[in-house]
């Protein structure tokens, strides 16, 4: 029996005169036609096309068949040997040459590894006693050589000309200017080169109206002025932090680039507790800097307060009363610092980064009074001799029309000057402007002549970084392009025959080496002498602003507290002054503190961010998120105004930033002479008025969302003290290691069992006592977070650059990363206590929520993390194709050609150190970095595979280096020497935080480090038994 029930889909159907829409939907579910025409384009043109459908199919069929046939036939590979092989080159064997970098910002004696005549890596020269430190930028400098944006020929108004034409024309113009009332100006970087200064003095003699102006993009002019005033010679104090037990720094980021940097190695020596002692470091600063992050006590304060602090400190140390107001917490901090300094006496040192000649003068007086051992005025540093006032005068003179010619070398004032537009205008009024540049940069584009300059690896030269400490620069490759050194052209202009090489050699023989051998000096790359050979060529400085100490102290003490925000400009670790902006390694180098790549930004404290509306919440559903779902960090924009200049900058919240202050880094916002991908960030130089890094600024919120490429989102440890174990010096000295570095206990049959007990192990232990067994030790005390190891790892292991968008998707390829953690309490210890005290679910939810936010002035810890090479590796057991396996020597091997890309290993890695090649990063136009052009690929290390798309990769513990060391020993028929094994990171680490070796060799340093009472394994409760050991961080929090 049929039912007469009526089934209906919608109320509309019941409506007797229901509308047609329902009827239509009944018949036709998809009412809209598929827009075929849209995607096939214009029908007419499609019909007119000569390719019919059948033809198209034929082409597809043919090309598929052709491609598969072609794949059957192997390519014919041509090999072209030398016609006449140079004696010293053996294909496959690396040569090392000692040379030096002196690009005006970084100065160091280095060793260059070359393969088949190509420089491929920068290494440290162990003979260099006064090296200025091989930082991340120096490590990356080898890639600048292979920059395909370099100027390849000399140019006149953008047109290529020959060198003979250029020198003839320049010489003619200079001759015309000689003796006129218009001056000839040499505007150069700090060369720190005795022979160059000699050459410039010759030039000055020939063309009488010459003035030589030394210009540092980021200036230390005040410190140099104060030094010159006091000691009669231009230079900077040479600090030796290994001799300092108490360090008080007021706004000086000496672990960064303060006064040329390079102090971290000596500093780190004093940071390792030895015989119960380590140095104590107090840092007063506004921005969170590397020095502040490493300090035992960090006091966040405004730059204007720093001046008062310095004055008060002076008062305490000299026993005079000094006026001025300070909040009580700052006052007690100053009192404490002063008493520590007095107690330490000659073992103490005081530094300041205040850009004020009187403040610098006071610091010199304080250190003299302390009779500080770390304070060396006999060997002043020569790497920052710039004279700001002279540069400022040059700009006004040029605009006044009194400058006839400007010859620039190693500088880019059109970018780095705060009044760059005035400079460019002035340059137009000169009769001759020549710039020696490697790039068509901002200055080159406004100069009449661009003299194509060689890279330092193609040049001759010399340096005297500190009085009496010399270095030689020699070419490690034939000039790639038609370039000529500034000095060679100068020689022609002066009329001295011979090359600059001859000039350096003869000058060294007569003035420096005396009877010593030139070949020895060239081989070593360094030479130490008691005398200095540098001629002073710079113009005299103006000492009018320097007052007596008492007046200076009063002036400082009465510094008014600024009402506006105080902006502190700083150089970022990876980018420095910005001359290496076209270097993809450095662009992708995560800043040690913000862990952000490819950008600069305004750092603001959380308090101010909330006040001004920059703050983004973590997980508000409806509002803009702090983080995207894919892990990308977002930020808002600020309009920052300094002295009438307004710039729109993205804002990042920096824990530890003093309230009422902001920070912004130099080196970004370049627009000329670099690839579009590298044109990142915002230029901070327009704010650099009067060459003062501290400026009063107005800030306001503006619209827009900025996408950062930040590699670390989680900023705190949330009380997980077993990731970074740390303790105080007092506990370290008095308690047993079991208290501050306890062995992790796990439960076995309801009994607490130490995790290293074989009973709790799933696996049987292999016997690794025969042969080599490699271990890597990382000392959290001496790691300053500088990141030189990160770039060294890139260079050694052909780590690809992936670009900002990929980094934002957390697809960075760094084999070695330096994690940075903030404490959410005042200290990490406080975090641990807070976590211990959590009881119940409600409390845990709320407390953990709070613990995600770093403290306003947190403690900071750096932790380099690479593959831990676990003896019981979780990644190895899950690989379906056994692409990851363990070697007897302790290394976790990764066979790229075996990997099928399941990424299971990365999932199973507790340390998150495995990296997946989401794309083909070489010879791919989507990733137009150095691996996409023939020139850039010359930096590739031929001993390491360049990985392809779809395979996993990770730190190999530089197996190519350990294998080579073993082979060398086998060939020589000897045992491997203790401490002969090295990895790229361990040899790049100036501060000695990373050490590597064979633990089966009882004589090697690593054997002791592995069994040190400070040693611990990361996440040891997982039972992975890593071959990387960390050393417990000890903080000197007790007052000395």
């Amino acid at each position, binding site marked *: 029996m049929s039912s007469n029930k009526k089934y209906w889909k919608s109320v509309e159907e019941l409506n007797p005169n229901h509308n047609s829409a329902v009827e239509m939907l009944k018949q036709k579910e998809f009412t809209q036609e598929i827009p075929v025409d849209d995607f096939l384009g214009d029908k007419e043109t499609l019909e007119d096309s000569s390719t019919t459908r059948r033809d198209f199919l034929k082409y597809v069929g043919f090309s598929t068949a052709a491609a598969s046939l072609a794949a*059957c036939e*192997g390519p*014919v*590979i*041509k*090999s*072209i*040997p*030398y*016609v*006449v*092989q140079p004696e010293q080159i*053996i*294909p*496959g*064997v690396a040569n090392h040459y000692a040379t030096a970098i002196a690009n005006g910002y970084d100065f160091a004696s280095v060793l260059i590894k070359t393969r088949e005549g190509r420089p491929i890596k920068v290494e440290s020269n162990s003979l260099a006693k006064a090296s200025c430190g091989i930082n991340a930028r120096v490590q990356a400098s080898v890639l600048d050589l292979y920059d395909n944006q370099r100027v390849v020929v000399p140019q006149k108004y953008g047109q290529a000309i020959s060198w003979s034409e250029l020198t003839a024309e320049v010489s003619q113009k200079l001759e015309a200017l000689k003796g006129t009332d218009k001056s000839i100006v040499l505007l150069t970087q700090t060369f720190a080169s005795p022979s160059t200064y000699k050459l410039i003095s010759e030039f000055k003699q020939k063309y009488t109206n010459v003035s030589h102006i030394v210009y540092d993009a980021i200036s230390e002019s005040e410190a140099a002025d104060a030094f010159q005033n006091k000691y009669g010679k231009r230079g900077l104090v040479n600090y030796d932090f290994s001799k300092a037990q108490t360090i008080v720094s007021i706004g000086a980021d000496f672990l960064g680039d303060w006064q040329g940097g390079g102090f971290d190695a000596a500093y780190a020596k004093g940071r390792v507790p030895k015989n119960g002692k380590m140095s104590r470091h107090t840092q007063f600063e506004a921005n969170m800097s590397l020095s502040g992050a490493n300090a035992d006590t960090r006091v966040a304060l405004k730059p204007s307060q720093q001046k008062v602090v310095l004055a008060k400190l002076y008062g305490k140390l000299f026993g005079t009363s000094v006026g001025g107001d300070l909040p009580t917490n700052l006052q007690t901090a100053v009192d404490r610092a002063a008493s520590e300094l007095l107690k330490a006496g000659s073992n103490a040192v005081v530094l300041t980064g205040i850009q004020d000649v009187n403040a610098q003068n006071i610091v010199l007086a304080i250190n003299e009074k302390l009779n500080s051992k770390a304070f060396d005025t006999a060997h002043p540093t020569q790497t920052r001799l710039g004279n700001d006032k002279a540069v400022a005068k040059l700009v006004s003179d040029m605009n006044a029309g009194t400058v006839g010619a400007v010859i620039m070398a190693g500088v880019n004032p059109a970018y780095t000057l705060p009044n760059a537009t005035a400079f460019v205008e002035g340059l137009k009024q000169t009769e001759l402007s020549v710039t020696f540049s490697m790039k068509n940069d901002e200055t080159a584009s406004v100069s009449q002549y661009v003299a194509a300059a060689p890279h330092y690896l193609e040049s001759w030269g010399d340096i005297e970084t500190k009085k009496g400490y010399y270095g030689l620069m020699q070419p490690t490759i034939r000039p790639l392009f038609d370039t000529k050194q500034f000095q060679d052209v100068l020689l022609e202009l002066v009329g001295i025959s011979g090359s600059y090489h001859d000039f350096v050699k003869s000058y060294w023989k007569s003035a420096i080496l005396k009877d010593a051998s030139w070949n020895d000096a060239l081989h070593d790359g360094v030479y130490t002498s008691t005398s200095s050979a540098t001629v002073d060529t710079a113009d005299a400085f103006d000492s009018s602003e320097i007052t007596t100490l008492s007046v200076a102290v009063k002036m400082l003490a009465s510094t008014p507290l600024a009402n506006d925000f105080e902006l502190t400009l700083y150089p970022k670790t990876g980018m420095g002054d910005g001359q290496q902006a076209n270097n993809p390694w450095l662009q992708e180098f995560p800043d040690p503190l913000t862990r952000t790549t490819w950008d600069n930004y305004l750092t603001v404290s959380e308090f101010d961010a909330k006040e001004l509306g920059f703050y983004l919440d973590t997980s508000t559903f409806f509002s803009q998120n702090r983080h995207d779902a894919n892990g990308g960090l977002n930020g808002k924009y600020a309009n920052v105004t300094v002295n009438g200049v307004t710039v729109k900058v993205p804002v990042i919240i920096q824990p530890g930033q003093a309230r009422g202050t902001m920070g912004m880094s130099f080196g970004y916002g370049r627009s000329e002479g670099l690839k579009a991908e590298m044109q990142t960030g915002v230029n901070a130089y327009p704010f650099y008025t009067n060459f003062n890094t501290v400026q009063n600024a107005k800030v306001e919120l503006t619209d827009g969302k900025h996408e950062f490429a930040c590699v670390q989102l989680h900023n705190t440890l949330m009380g997980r003290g077993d990731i970074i174990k740390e303790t105080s010096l007092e506990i370290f000295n008095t308690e047993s290691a079991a208290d501050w570095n306890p062995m992790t206990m796990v439960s076995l049959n309801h009994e607490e069992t130490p995790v290293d007990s074989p009973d709790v192990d799933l696996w049987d232990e292999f*016997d690794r*006592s*025969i*042969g080599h067994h490699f271990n890597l030790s990382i000392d959290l005390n001496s790691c300053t977070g500088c990141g030189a190891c990160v770039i060294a790892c890139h260079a050694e292991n052909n780590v690809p650059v992936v670009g900002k968008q990929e980094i934002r998707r957390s697809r960075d390829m760094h084999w070695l990363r330096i994690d940075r953690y903030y404490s959410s309490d005042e200290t990490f210890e406080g975090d641990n206590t807070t976590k211990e005290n959590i009881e119940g679910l409600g409390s845990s939810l709320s407390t953990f929520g709070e613990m995600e936010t770093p403290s306003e002035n947190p403690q900071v810890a750096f932790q380099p993390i690479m593959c831990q090479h676990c003896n019981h590796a979780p990644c190895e057991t899950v690989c379906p194709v056994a*692409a990851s*396996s363990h*070697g*007897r*020597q302790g*290394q976790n*091997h*990764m*066979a*790229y*050609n*075996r990997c099928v890309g399941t990424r299971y290993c990365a999932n199973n890695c507790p340390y998150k150190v495995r990296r997946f090649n989401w794309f083909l990063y070489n010879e791919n136009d989507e990733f137009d970095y150095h691996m996409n052009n023939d020139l850039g690929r010359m930096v590739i290390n031929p*001993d*390491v*595979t*360049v990985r392809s798309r779809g395979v996993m990769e990770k730190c*190999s513990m530089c*197996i*190519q280096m350990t*294998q080579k060391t*073993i*082979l060398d*020993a*086998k*060939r*020589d*028929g*000897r*045992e*491997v020497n203790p401490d002969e094994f090295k990895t790229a990171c361990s040899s790049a680490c100036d501060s000695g935080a990373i050490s590597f070796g064979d633990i089966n060799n009882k004589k090697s340093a690593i054997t002791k480090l592995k069994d040190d009472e400070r040693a611990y394994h990361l996440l040891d409760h997982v039972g992975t038994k890593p071959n990387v050991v960390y050393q417990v961080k000890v903080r000197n929090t007790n007052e000395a």
Partner: protein
Amino acid sequence: MKQGFKFYAPSKLLSTGLFFLTIIFTSLFAQDGDPVKGKSLFNANCAACHQLDKKMTGPALRNVEARLSETEGLDRAWLNSWIRNSSAMIKSGDAYANKIYAEYNGSAMTAFPQFSDEDINNILAYTAKEKAAPAVAVVGTSQATVESSSGVSQEIVLGALAILFGLLALGLFLVNKTLRRFASANNVEIAEAIKRKSLWKAFVQNQFLMLVAAIFFLLSSAYFVYGYLSQVGVDQGYQPIQPIHYSHKIHAGDNGIDCKYCHSSARVSKHSGIPALNVCMNCHKSIYEVSESTGNDEYSKEFYDGEIKKLYDAVGWDDANQKYTGKTKPVKWVRIHNLPDFAYFNHSQHVTVAGLECQTCHGPVEEMEVMYQFSPLTMGWCINCHRETNVKVQDNGYYEKIHKALSKKYGVEQLTAAQMGGLECGKCHY
């Protein structure tokens, strides 16, 4: 390689014949010397700087005695004293001696005071020989006939066999026919075969057999596909034509030059290296042509000489004036042995440390007229050798302790490379 030797003996015979022929024409100046002894003396002492017909470091010496006596009026006494101590003669102010000295850029000839008069006579006798007429290749016919006769006999045997089989088949057919005739004659009924299902239909209808057949088919095709795929990229036997026909057989085989003389970087580097052209010129500065005996049927002497000219062209050597022009054309060799980029191989580890012969991997290079890839260079091939080869530990301080401890652990006398860790992935893949 057989072929190379086949023609060797006759051509040598021929050249010896020619040699005796030339002796008959020995000119009157050197009647008192023995040109055979002279030749060996010449090759041992003079050939580094002199050739008979070509100016090298020193002048060409063919008929030098006759030439000197005709043009300069100098006798053998002059020659004797020049050979024994030329620089003394230059100092003494002898006119012709000084002229020669100036002509060869002031490089004095090495003194040979040890030569007796007889030695010099012998050498001069050798130099006085007339130039041999170029050898005409009239060889190999007897060999060919031997070869063809063996071919003919095989064909005869085969033909006879075919005829035999044909006769047998015919015989069978005739026997069958005769038997049937007998059967019909005797009224014997030959049972007609029952019409059965044809075999293939039965096969198709038997599901079990079909299944087995399908599995067999699939497995065997998988086997062949696998075999095909695993030889992709394996270039064993790859023998490309090189821009210069360089014969390893002549250099390493006939002349016994050590491999590492030219491939010197194999001792210290991961690459064995293709020798730079200046290494070739160490010898080929004076070897501008091959000997008569080197030329063979396949490659004539002219061909080889032409290849040496190619070398001169590439390296920019002006043979006539004995100097470099500076115009070089680097040679683009075709690479034969090519490991993929992800495999690390180090020659010095195998050549210097393990002391392996080059032939272990590269095969009988000294017999290769044209170089080819001897080994498959596959991973299985590498691994196999590592499993079978003992580590050479003698006199190597590196292995002393390790070998002692490890061999004790494994309970063996001699460790293989595999037991030393030579099978670990990361040893070759990084």
